[in-house]
């Protein structure tokens, strides 16, 4: 029983992390029709920023660090979008290739700056003691992480559904040309959404640090997970990213715990199943 509950919680916390990673990916894909292959690298960059900051200043609060790293990564993402991606507006394949190139550059830069050994990120002091519920012991940090992901989901939901900016983004996702025609500055929205997505991924990287620690190849581990989440949930759909993240969180965690060698194959079963019957994903409105 303890096993199932603990693994269930691990699944939830991984799902939460995946949501932080893939919600931005999904928004960017939905609006810009761009598979941002740099997204895993943004996440990893966040983790390394967090690891570096938290290890050199021991009193630093992890939430402040996550915010700071998120802003830093968002700035890098914004620069990249403005300087490179906008030049390739008419060349979608080229855009994907430069995001791939950028991910190589970032991951190699991390390797150069921080070396090849994994850097553990300390769990915040106040969240280290376990929480007891009905005689079961839970790691507090993981619970908080799930709450944090749900919080981000709610904020994003309100941003998209209840604000003017969100209405413009939704219009851009549904029909970019029509949105342009009624005077929505879609190109500026691209930058905003790209920064937002990169920022959430960077902040998520910091928050995921205590679970995953910063290591070279983290980007290559996370990117496929984001891809699966988005293919599963449907492109450009926040709800899809949310549900997809937890589905992938559960399949991956239980797959690793029960069949460690086949975890990677089990992970892809839900995706293959969804593609077979619903190529646009569970909640997708637009085809990939």
């Amino acid at each position, binding site marked *: 029983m303890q096993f199932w509950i603990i693994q269930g919680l691990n699944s939830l916390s991984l799902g939460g992390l995946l949501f932080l990673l893939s919600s931005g990916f999904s928004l960017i*894909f939905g609006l810009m*029709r*761009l*598979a941002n*292959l740099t997204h895993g690298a943004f996440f990893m960059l966040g983790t390394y920023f967090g690891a570096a900051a938290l290890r050199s200043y021991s009193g630093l609060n992890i939430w402040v660090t996550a915010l700071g790293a998120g802003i830093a990564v968002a700035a890098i993402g914004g620069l990249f979008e403005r300087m*490179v991606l906008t*030049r*390739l507006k008419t*060349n*979608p*394949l*080229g855009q*994907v*290739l*430069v995001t*791939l*190139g*950028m*991910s*190589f*550059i970032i*991951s*190699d*830069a991390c*390797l*150069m700056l921080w070396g090849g050994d994994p850097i553990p990120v300390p769990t915040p002091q106040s969240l280290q003691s376990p929480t007891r519920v009905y005689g079961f012991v839970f790691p507090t940090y993981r619970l908080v992480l799930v709450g944090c992901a749900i919080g981000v989901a709610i904020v994003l939901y309100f941003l998209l559904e209840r604000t003017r900016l969100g209405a413009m983004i939704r219009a851009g996702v549904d029909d970019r040309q029509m949105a342009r025609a009624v005077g929505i500055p879609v190109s500026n929205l691209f930058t905003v959404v790209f920064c937002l997505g990169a920022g959430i991924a960077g902040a998520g990287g910091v928050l995921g640090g205590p679970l995953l620690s910063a290591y070279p190849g983290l980007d*290559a581990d996370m*990117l*496929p997970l984001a*891809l*699966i989440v*988005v*293919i599963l949930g449907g*492109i450009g759909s926040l709800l899809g990213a949310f549900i997809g993240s937890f589905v992938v969180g559960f399949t991956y965690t239980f797959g690793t715990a029960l069949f*460690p*060698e*086949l*975890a*990677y*194959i089990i*992970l*892809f079963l839900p*995706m*293959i199943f969804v*593609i*077979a019957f619903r*190529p646009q994903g569970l909640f997708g409105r637009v*085809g*990939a």
Partner: protein
Amino acid sequence: MKWIGITLIAASLLLPPLFAGDFYINLASQILIAAIFALSLNLLVGFGGMTSLGHASYLGVAAYISALLTSRYGFGHGTAAIISIVGTTATAALFGVIALRTTGLGFLMITLALSQVLWGLAYRMSNVTNGDNGIAGLTRPTPFGISLDSAASFYWFALLVATFACLMMTIFVSSAFGSSLKGVRDQPRRMAALGFNPWMIRWITFTYAGLWGGVSGLLYVYYNKYIHPTSLSTTSSAEALLGVIAGGSGTLGGPVVGAALVLLLKNYASAYIERWNMLLGLVFLFIVLVMPRGIVPGVSSLTAALRDESR
């Protein structure tokens, strides 16, 4: 003019083993292997309009099957080669069924995701694949009793296979089927209206490209006598894709030139700096921003312009 070109190419392919040192002969063998791989990817990217980011899967699967069968299960090279080519083609056929449910960016993401599965398997399933240690101590085959252990003999072998592969792929794209493939790339709806089955055309091409990817994988493992999960990684797929795009996708010569350039760059750069991945990323940015159509189309349009000028 055409004959001069053909003679030059033939000479540059046939002469190296006669006077060059082993280092350069080996480099030439590697270029041949990369060229087969890039050409097979080009069937998808250039002629089919299907940008795959998971083509290393087929190279890796063929190499791993051959390595496992010969080193662990005592198969002969001939049988192992046949099984690994059949296995790779079957893998491609299966992956094609999954990935071709979508087109465009969805296709790209699914091929990437599927290749990551194989990479993950090669890495994590260590009791079969030996994980991060890779499989070492492999041997080269001895077709008709000829040893391929010297650099020159392996070069001849690779050249033979590469010529055959190149011929088969050229026939494929210049056949009627190749024309329908280009039709599906440019106008899938019209092709469907004309009674063609775009899905089937794409799937056959995908499987066929997997087959030649597998052939290059076999040569790869024969050449290196070693296989490691990195051969299956995204970097490996991306290098091939860069070669195809840098050289010029949708041409027959382009991918060969591109693959050769990437390989030479990798070999020379790694002698001076460690940062191959960063350089690869920068080259990606450069090629896409500056030469989006690739080197070969760029150069041929330049020479065409010069010819018009001189007239």
